[in-house]
Structures are given as structure tokens and as C-alpha cells.
């Protein structure tokens, strides 16, 4: 017994919680009443501190209220939420925008594209950020919701193959790997695309995203567009029903994809270009992908902008279009518009004006290389920028 009472109070509190959670075992801990005494003493002290803190908080609050009145000219507060891929860019934008517009009050959060779309439709937030445009069904149900491209992003197919740096892959090969039909690196289909490369006879470990992701969306769009089998069965989405591949693994977030691919030799993964530096540092190679014209291209600034400009003229007025697997001799096949999901009929004209001003800034000054370069995004082509501007003007 005596040893039991000497035990550290912190440990006793922990134990106390366990026993309260699962009543019925407390009778085995008969030293309880004395220990409870310590807890009660501690509580008296705690409440005194609490009261003092409360007074201090009140004082601070009243002070803040007083100074608040001095700055009467504050803009309507805006809330942006959604895509974790767009989040770093929005943070750069808000910092730059606030420097030009000191009265602006914009909060950014990273919750995921699905949450951004859902909350924007419900009117909980002003701007939803999404890697995917709204589906026809959603637009039919909510005709006032707009999908406005703000910038262009892309994705690399990375591989962990010791000694190989010049791998070429195509949509059908990738579909075969992720369906479990191509299981060895020296499969005839991969060998045919890579003449002269000494491919290892090792099992392929395909890595996919566990969480809902815009990267999964564009990767599966590329597979759907380039491989008829994938396009008719698994299709595309921010999370798809991955076929059962023995040994295939799921990773959480783009950083998780980099870690998983680096930790597992002979793996293959799709990783957003914002993480290109981390992927290269982890020793992962980027594959040359077969585009619609039949050429193998790497994701570079030139090939991505060629892809963007090749679809610029065919982008419809509501801008809900896939720009994956576009025509163009050197167009990189996995390219995507990053969207703001906004309701065109806002509750108050002042809110609508604040959203318009910010989004117009984002697609003009915000498309400057000084912002985009930091996250490896590319600016919108001029025609698409004009379409986005026209959509932004609809917000009332």
C-alpha cells in the first residue's frame, strides 16, 4: 500500500481517468480516496487561476473592442477552404493581396476538395478550392454554382528503380499495372516501350492515394482517356475503387506518396508537381509519358503550357472540362485546371464585391510567376483567363 501512495500524482490522474471510463474495476484500486484528495486540492488552485485569467481576458477583449472601432473601414471577411494542393498557393496569394489591400480579411484553410465543394454549396464558406470541376448532376441541382479556373497544375509519374533514370510509360501500361495485369518490371509491354533499358525482373509495387485527392482524379482521368478498359470499368474520381493488386499500397497525401515510393524499391507512384523537388531529392525518377500524338514527354514548363494552350480555344464558357490527354505534339498528358467553386448569387452585394475583387486579382496579378513558381503551377492562357474573368463578373 505505502508504495502505491508515493506514486507520482500525474500517473495517478491518468489511472484515475482509466478507472472512471470503465467503472467496475475501481475496487481493485483501494488506495483511491487518499489520491482523490490531491486532485481536489489541485482543483481549488486551478479555479483560482482560472478566475484571474478570465479577468485578464475580459480586459484584453474590451481593449480590442475599443481599438476595433478606430478601424471602421474593414472589408467583408471572406473564408476560403478546400483543396490541399491549392492551399499553399492561396496562402501566398492572401499575403500578396493583403499587402495591396490592407483592409482585406481572408481566412484560408486546407480541408480537401470534396469538403471545399460541399461547404461552398451549403454557403458555409465563400470560396471553395477544388482540383476537380463540379459534375453535371451537381450543377443541375445547384445551377448558380460556378467552377472558375485560377491556375494550371500538373502531375508526374514517379518510379523507384535503382539504376534506371529514363523510363517511358503509357496510359495502357499504367492501367495494366494498377489493375494487376502487369506485375513484373520486365513485362513485355514495358520492355517494348523501353528498348535498350535493362529492366529488373522484380514485382511492381503500385502506390495510390488513400485519401480523396485531385491527383487521383487527374491520374484516373488520364487512364480513362487512354485505356478503354479502365474507362469503362473503374472510371475516374477523387477516390476510385482500386482493383485488388497483391502488394499494392495506399499512402496518405502527396508527402506520404513520396515517402512510400522512396521506402519501397520497385514502386511506382503519381505525385503532384508541387512535390517535384521532394520527389527528386528522394531519388525518384519521373517517367516520360505517351501523349495523344504518340510522343513520350516529361512534365516540363514547355510541355505543360503546350497542353494548356492546346485546349484553351476548346474550353467552354462554364469551363467545366477535362484538359487531360490533350492533342499537341509535345503536350504533357496529365494537366489540370485548379478551380474556385463559388456561388454566383451571394447573400449581400458587399460580399459578392469582395469575392470578385479577390478572384480578379488572383487570375491577373496572382498569376504572376513570383507566386506560381514557388508551387510549380503555371498561369492560365489568355483565352481561359478571359473566360474566368467573365465567370467572376457573374458573382452578384
Amino acid at each position, binding site marked *: 500500500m505505502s508504495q*502505491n501512495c508515493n506514486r507520482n500524482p500525474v500517473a495517478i490522474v491518468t489511472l484515475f481517468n482509466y478507472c472512471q471510463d470503465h467503472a467496475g474495476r475501481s475496487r481493485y484500486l483501494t488506495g483511491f480516496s487518499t489520491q482523490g484528495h490531491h486532485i481536489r486540492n489541485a482543483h481549488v488552485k486551478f479555479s483560482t487561476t482560472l478566475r484571474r485569467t478570465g479577468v485578464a481576458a475580459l480586459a484584453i477583449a474590451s481593449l480590442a473592442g475599443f481599438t476595433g472601432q478606430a478601424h471602421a473601414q474593414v472589408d467583408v471577411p471572406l473564408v476560403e477552404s478546400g483543396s490541399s494542393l491549392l492551399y499553399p498557393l492561396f496562402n501566398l496569394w492572401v499575403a500578396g493581396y493583403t499587402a495591396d489591400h490592407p483592409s482585406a480579411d481572408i481566412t484560408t484553410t486546407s480541408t480537401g476538395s470534396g469538403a471545399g465543394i460541399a461547404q461552398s454549396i451549403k454557403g458555409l464558406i465563400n470560396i471553395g478550392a477544388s482540383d476537380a470541376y463540379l459534375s453535371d448532376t451537381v450543377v443541375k441541382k445547384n445551377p448558380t454554382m460556378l467552377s472558375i479556373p485560377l491556375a494550371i497544375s500538373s502531375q508526374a509519374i514517379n518510379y523507384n528503380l535503382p539504376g534506371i533514370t529514363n523510363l517511358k510509360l503509357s496510359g495502357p501500361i499504367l492501367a495494366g499495372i494498377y489493375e494487376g495485369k502487369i506485375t513484373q518490371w520486365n513485362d513485355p509491354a514495358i520492355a517494348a516501350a523501353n528498348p535498350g533499358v535493362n529492366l529488373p525482373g522484380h514485382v511492381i509495387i503500385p502506390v495510390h492515394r488513400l485519401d480523396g485527392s485531385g491527383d487521383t482524379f487527374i491520374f484516373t482521368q488520364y487512364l480513362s482517356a487512354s485505356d478503354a478498359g479502365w474507362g469503362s470499368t473503374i472510371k475516374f474520381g477523387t477516390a476510385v475503387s*482500386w482493383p485488388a493488386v497483391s502488394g499494392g499500397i495506399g499512402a496518405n497525401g502527396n508527402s506520404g506518396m513520396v515517402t512510400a515510393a522512396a521506402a519501397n524499391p520497385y514502386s511506382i507512384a503519381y505525385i503532384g508537381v508541387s512535390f517535384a523537388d521532394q520527389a527528386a531529392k528522394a531519388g525518384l525518377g519521373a517517367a516520360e509519358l505517351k501523349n495523344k500524338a504518340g510522343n513520350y514527354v516529361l512534365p516540363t514548363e514547355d510541355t505543360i503550357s503546350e497542353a494548356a494552350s492546346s485546349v484553351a480555344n476548346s474550353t467552354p464558357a462554364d469551363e467545366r472540362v477535362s484538359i487531360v490527354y490533350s492533342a499537341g505534339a509535345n503536350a504533357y498528358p496529365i494537366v489540370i485546371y485548379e478551380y474556385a467553386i463559388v456561388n454566383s448569387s451571394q447573400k449581400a452585394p458587399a460580399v459578392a464585391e469582395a469575392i470578385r475583387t479577390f478572384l480578379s486579382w488572383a487570375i491577373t496579378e496572382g498569376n504572376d510567376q513570383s507566386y506560381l513558381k514557388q508551387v510549380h503551377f503555371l498561369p492560365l492562357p489568355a483565352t481561359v483567363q478571359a473566360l474566368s474573368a467573365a465567370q467572376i463578373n457573374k458573382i452578384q
Partner: protein
Amino acid sequence: MTIRPFRLSVLTLSLFIPAALCAVVLFLVIYSGQAILFNGLHFITDINWNLGDLYDDPVTVNGISVPSGANYGIWVFIAGTLASSTIAILIAVPLSVGAAIFLAEAVSPKIRPILSLLVELIAVIPSVVFGLWGIAVLVPFISHYLSPTGNGYGLLAASIVLALMITPIIASTLLDALMQVPRENRESAFALGATHFEVVAKAMMPMVRTTLVGGIVLALGRALGETMAVLMVSGGGINILPDSLFSPISTIASFVVSQLDSAQADPTNMSVRALSEVALVLFVITLAVNAAAKLLASGALNVRNRK
């Protein structure tokens, strides 16, 4: 009848806890109602999970609007949850029984509080820290030295991380019970000529068996519901049942987290309802585990109560 302000206010406060529990359960049942109707019993026996094509027009099945191609089956995740928790318990029980006996019997009373505090400190480490350790140390280790395919993520990694998280729970409850064994029992056993091992194994352990079982069930409850650490190292298996220690798995809790964002983009809302039904299944499993704990601890199997 007199009004008793103290009793009334405390009663009101105490009613909040059961009310919150009922509200959560009611919400889950009502919200997942349509999914339960749509899925039927296939929900827990099917191994194919597919949110369907969220970008195509929804179809109507039995008057319920669902995304085309949607099919919700969670047997893979139930299997993953039960397998990882069971293996974690198998690893954690010998470790924690050994640790508790060592602390109760082999350590001098001066150092004991320090060492037992260290054991209890492991219990308060946030689960994401275990997950990071799993990714940085455990997964590469399994990948290089154990796994035949070179894949470190999976059932074994998840089980080891879970085992580390629950060891202090079992160890600290058991240590406490061992300290409560009456000195007379211990000394009588020594006086009868028992060795130290026999004293622990035959005189002390039978007295604390109920506490040990209660601690294990308590730990199992934690293991079943653990989300973040498992999500980080489990490999996120989907549509495939684990066939070895190195197979990627998903547990129910981690699966709900990983699918929720995509489900929210579903215009029919059926995906979120199906995920609520998944959460309901997890709730039923943990409820069963806790009920078992209550039953065991209430003395149904208590050796000491036998006359």
C-alpha cells in the same frame, strides 16, 4: 418537497453525458438509414467497396438515388480491424505482463515510481507521433529485413504500432493490481517454500486475472478505434483481403477518414450515408468489447468470489 439547487444543477450536468451519447447514436442511425436499406446484409459480407461514378448521372435503385456503379461492402475493413487488433494484443500482452511483474517484484521501491511513470508516459504520446515513428523507422525496417516483396506498409506495421500504444494501458492496470495483492498471501507462499517464480505465477497472478482481462479488453477498445497512426502505416488495402502479415490493410476508423472527402462530392449524399453506416458498425463492435469488459470486471468470472 424542497428544491435542492445543488442536486438539480448536478443532475442536469450529469444528464448531458448520456444525452450526448444517445444523440450521436440516434444521428448515426437516422443519417445512415437510407444506406442501411440500400445495402442490406451485403454491407458486412461483401469485399467490394466502390463509391461509383460521381461524375455520371445517379441511378435510382428501389426508390433510392445512388451514384451509378456504387457498391458498399466493408468485410475487408472489418477483417483488417480485427486482424490488426488481435495481433497487437498478442504482441502487447506478453510485453506488458513481463513489464508489470518486473516493476512489481524485481525493482527496488525507490526506482519503481520512476519506471512506472515512464510506462504510463507512453500512454499519453499522441498517436500521430507513433505513426511518424512507424513511417520513419518501422516501415523501412520491415521493408529491408522482413518483407519478401520489399513492401513495409501493411498488417505487421499497423499491429506493431498498435501494440506499442496499448502496452502501457495493460501494464499500468496490471501493475496496480499486483501492488494490491495482500502481503500475507505473498509471504505465506514464500513460507511454504515456493520459488520467486512460483510465488508470482501461482500466488499472485491468479488474484489479478480479472484485472488483466479487463486491461486487455480496455486496450482492445483503444486498438479497434485507433485512426491516425494506422492510416499512416497500414498501406490502405481496398477490395483485397489480407493474406499475409505484409498485406496492406485498412481498418474501419482509418477507412472512414480516408474516404470522407471524396464522399462529400457525391450529389446523392449516399456515399456519406454509407460511411455513417461504417461508423455505426465500428460503434457496435466497440460497444460489444466494452460490454464484455464490464461483464468480466463485474465479477462474472472472478476467481476470488468463488466460495
